[in-house]
């Protein structure tokens, strides 16, 4: 029995705040739950808050990239917020720069990002 990460909704935005070290199976559940919820709740945006995550390895990094891609196909934009500086350095050195993933420094800036009309680069 693995834990599930709760998905909250603020208007048209789904908010996920990852608060504990995720097991791989939980990561996969989150990916599927989010895709389902984007459609079920007609969400236009997804915010994934990783402030509490001390590390992001390739498995979680790949999940973030996949959610960004899947949400784009379902007409929603994903913004990852709260990445720690040490996590950013480690991901780049690992070779995982998450080029297709939109980021903001915190939840407030992430929500503001989603309120703005999408730049063409965000939707390509």
């Amino acid at each position, binding site marked *: 029995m693995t834990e599930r990460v709760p998905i909250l909704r603020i208007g048209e935005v789904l908010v996920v705040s990852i608060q504990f*070290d*995720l*097991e*791989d*199976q939980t990561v996969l559940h989150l990916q599927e739950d989010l895709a389902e919820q984007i459609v079920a709740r007609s969400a236009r945006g997804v915010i994934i808050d990783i402030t509490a995550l*001390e*590390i*992001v*390895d*390739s*498995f979680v*990094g*790949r999940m973030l990239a996949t959610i960004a891609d899947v949400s784009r196909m379902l007409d929603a934009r994903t913004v990852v917020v709260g990445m*720690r*500086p*040490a*996590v950013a*350095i*480690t991901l780049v*050195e*690992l*070779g*995982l720069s998450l080029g297709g993933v939109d980021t903001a420094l915190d939840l407030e800036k992430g929500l503001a990002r989603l309120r703005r009309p999408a730049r063409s680069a965000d939707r390509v």
Partner: protein
Amino acid sequence: MTAPWSAGEEQQLLPVARSSDVVQVRQMIRTLAQQCRLSLVDQTKFITAASELARNTLVYGGGGTVRAGAVEKGVRRGVAAVFADEGPGIADVELAMTDGWTSGGGLGLGLSGTRRLVDEFDLVTEVGAGTTVTIIKWAR
């Protein structure tokens, strides 16, 4: 590289038999990295490297063990971790260490990316007998 431990150093041993064990490995390595006074960035790199290798042990090696502890070399102190499995081994190590290579499922930056995160990286493998990867990060 032979066992990185010097006499008198104590190590911790954890099994890597299921997905939840990878979480346990990260927690053990985090505690050790903090005890060895690695900087925050170095802790993050070392825990991330350990997470990648623990997953490899589980997925490609069919499970195994992680042994970790403090190490000393001259005046330097650091933390080491040894990931061992008795899985199929790696037939072409040079190829496996190439950026972009994967035998399935992954992003293809497992081993080469992981090597960049640590100060010392040693891989011993034999087809049909298993794989042992040793990593060390020194405190600065």
